[in-house]
C-alpha cells in the first residue's frame, strides 16, 4: 500500500511539473509579428471578476492601439508569475504589464525585467521592488471611505463587525488599515468582532449567521472588505429579518452589488475603477515604448456609491 502511494505521488509530481512546463512553452507560441508593439501581461487571477474587468479593458485598449498582447494567468501564484515574466523576457517583449500576486514574492519579476532592460508596469497592486510605472488605487483609501460612511450613518456611535479577505493579502491589510484609521477617530464606534470570510460569498454568509447568533441585534453595521462578502452578509441579515436595522458596506462595486444598492439591501459600495486601471496601463505602455514622458505613479481614486449617485456607475 505504501509503495503504491509513493508511486501515486511520483506520478502526481510528474504530472504537475509537465503541466507547468507546458503552460510556459505554450506562451512562447505567441510570436512577435513584424514591428507591432508586443506587450506581455500577467494577471493575478482570472477567476476574480474585478481582475477580469481590468484585463478586458487592457485587451480592448490594446486592440484599439494595434498592440499585440500575450496575456497569461498567474493563478495567484507569485512563483508562476515570476516564471511568466522570465518567459516574457526570453520572448523579448517590448513592455510587461504585471498585476502582482504578492508584494514581496512578485518583486523578483520586476527586478528581472528591469535588469533585462524591459520596462515593467505594475497595475492594481504594488511590489517592494520599484517598477517603471505604477497604476492603481490606494486600498487604504477604500477602507477609509467605507468606514467613514458607516460612522456617518451611525452618527459616530454603535457596534461594527468587519469581514476580512484572505488574511495577509495586500488588499486585506490595507482595507483593514483604512477602516481602523477611521475607527480611531470615533471612540464610540466599537469593533465588536472581525473575522475572515476569504473574499467568498458563501463563507461570509455562514460567518454572518454565526455572528447573528452571537451578537443578535446588537450589531449596527457590517464592513465587508469586498462585495462578494458584503452580499453574503446582506443575505444572512435579510434571512434573519435584521437587514433594516443594520448598515452594510463593502468594496469593489461589482454588478451584483450595484443591483443591491439599487434595491436598498446594500447601503453602499466603494467603486474601484477597473476600466481606468486597464486603460491607463496600456496608455503608459505606449508612452514608454515610444520614448515619451510618462507618469511614474497614477493613482485612480475610489468613489463611494450610494443610492444617490448610483446611476453614474450602472452600465
Amino acid at each position, binding site marked *: 500500500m505504501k509503495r503504491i502511494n509513493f508511486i501515486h505521488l511520483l506520478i502526481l509530481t510528474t504530472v504537475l511539473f509537465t503541466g507547468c512546463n507546458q503552460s510556459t512553452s505554450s506562451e512562447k507560441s505567441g510570436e512577435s509579428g513584424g514591428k507591432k508593439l508586443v506587450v506581455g501581461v500577467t494577471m493575478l487571477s482570472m477567476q*476574480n471578476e474585478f481582475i*477580469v474587468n481590468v484585463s478586458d479593458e487592457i485587451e480592448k485598449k490594446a486592440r484599439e492601439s494595434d498592440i499585440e498582447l500575450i496575456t497569461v494567468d498567474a493563478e495567484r501564484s507569485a512563483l508562476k508569475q515570476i516564471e511568466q515574466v522570465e518567459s516574457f523576457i526570453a520572448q523579448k517583449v517590448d513592455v510587461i504589464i504585471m498585476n502582482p500576486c504578492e508584494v514581496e514574492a512578485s518583486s523578483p519579476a520586476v527586478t528581472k525585467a528591469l535588469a533585462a532592460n524591459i520596462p515593467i508596469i505594475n497595475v492594481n497592486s504594488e511590489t517592494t521592488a520599484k517598477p517603471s510605472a505604477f497604476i492603481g488605487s490606494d486600498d487604504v483609501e477604500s477602507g477609509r471611505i467605507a468606514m467613514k460612511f458607516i460612522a456617518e450613518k451611525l452618527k459616530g456611535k454603535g457596534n461594527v463587525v468587519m469581514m476580512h479577505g484572505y488574511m495577509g493579502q495586500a488588499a486585506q491589510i490595507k482595507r483593514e488599515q483604512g477602516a481602523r484609521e477611521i475607527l480611531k477617530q470615533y471612540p464610540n464606534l466599537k469593533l465588536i468582532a472581525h473575522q475572515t470570510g476569504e473574499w467568498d460569498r458563501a463563507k461570509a454568509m455562514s460567518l454572518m449567521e454565526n455572528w447573528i447568533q452571537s451578537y443578535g441585534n446588537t450589531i449596527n453595521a457590517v464592513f465587508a472588505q469586498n462585495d462578494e462578502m458584503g452580499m453574503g452578509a446582506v443575505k444572512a441579515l435579510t434571512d434573519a429579518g435584521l437587514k433594516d436595522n443594520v448598515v452594510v458596506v463593502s468594496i469593489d462595486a461589482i454588478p451584483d452589488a450595484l443591483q443591491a444598492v439599487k434595491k436598498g439591501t446594500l447601503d453602499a459600495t466603494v467603486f474601484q475603477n477597473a476600466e481606468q486601471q486597464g486603460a491607463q496601463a496600456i496608455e503608459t505602455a505606449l508612452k514608454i515604448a515610444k520614448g515619451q514622458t510618462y507618469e511614474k505613479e497614477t493613482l485612480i481614486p475610489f468613489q463611494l456609491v450610494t443610492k444617490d449617485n448610483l446611476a453614474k456607475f450602472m452600465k
Partner: protein
Amino acid sequence: MENPVQTDRNPTVEAYKTRMRGIGKYGIFVAFLLICVVLSVVTPKFLTVSNLTIVVTQVSINALLAFGVTFVIITGGIDLSIGSTVAVTSVVAASFAHPDTYPVLVPILTGLAAGLLLGAFNGLVITKSKVPPFIVTLGTMTIGRGLALILSKGRPVSNLSDSFNFIGGGQIVGIPTPIIILLVFFILCSVVLKKTVLGRYMYAVGGNEQAAKASGIQLNKVKMVVYTLCGGLAALAGILLTSRITTGQPNAGVGFELDAIAAAIIGGTSTSGGTGTMTGTLIGALLIGVISNGLDLMNVTSYYQQVVMGIIIIGAVVLDSLNQHKN
C-alpha cells in the same frame, strides 16, 4: 444467506471488521458529543435551537459532498473533482434559473445532469484506462474549474428566480429546506449502502478487489455507478449552494473536496477502502461544522481558527484510532 458477497469471506474477519466499524463510529460520536459539551459550557450562544439549526444548514452542503465521496472511498477510490463539479453545476443551474425563463425544474435537472456527466466521465476514464482515481479526478478537477470559467466568462451568474432561491433558502414547516434535503439524502445514501446489493458490492470491491472479482462482481460497473453517484451528489450540493447564495459562482467550491474527504475520514471511512458508514460521515461533517461555528461564536481570531481546527480534526481521528486499537 441474503448476502452473496460475504459467503466466501472469512466469517471471523468479517465479524471483527463489523465490530471495528461499530466501535469506530462510536468513538467519533463520543468525540463529537465531547466537543458539543465543551462549546455549550464555553459559550452560552451555542446550545440554542436557532444556532443548531444554522449549523446543520451550513453543514448540509459539505455533508452531501461527503456522502458521495464516502461511496467512492469505500470502493477504494478517491474523488478530488467534486469541488469543481460544484462550480460547474452552480454556473449551469444559475444560467437556467433567471426569473420568467424556465420552470424551476429545468435548472435543477440541467445542474444535476452536469454533475452526473462529470462523475460518469471520471468513472469511464478510471475503469477504461486503469489510471489511479487520484490522477484522473485531479485532471477532472482542473477541467471542471476551466469549464465553469468558460461557461460563465469568469463572472458570477446573478438574478435568479425566487422559486430557485427557495431550494437553499426556504423553509418547509419552519425547517430550512437544506436540512430537509440533507435528511432525505442521508436516508437514501444509508439505504443504498446498507440495504442494497450495490452497497454490499461497494464494500466488497473496496475490501478486496481480487476477491470481489473472483466472486463475479463486475468491478467496472460498480465503479462507474459510484463515481456517477458522487458527481450527482456534488451537483446537488452545487445547486444548494447556488440557491443559498442566490448566484452562480465559477469559483465556488474551491477546496470543498478536502472538507468532504475530511468529513468521511473523521467519520471512520478508511482510505484503504472497504469500511465506512453514512452515519459516521454525517457526524464527521457535523463535527467540522460545529467547530467552525463554535470558534466564530467565541470570536477566535482567524489566525488561530485554522490551527485549532486542524488540531481538533487530528485529535478526533487519533482518539478514534486509539479506540480501535484497544479492541
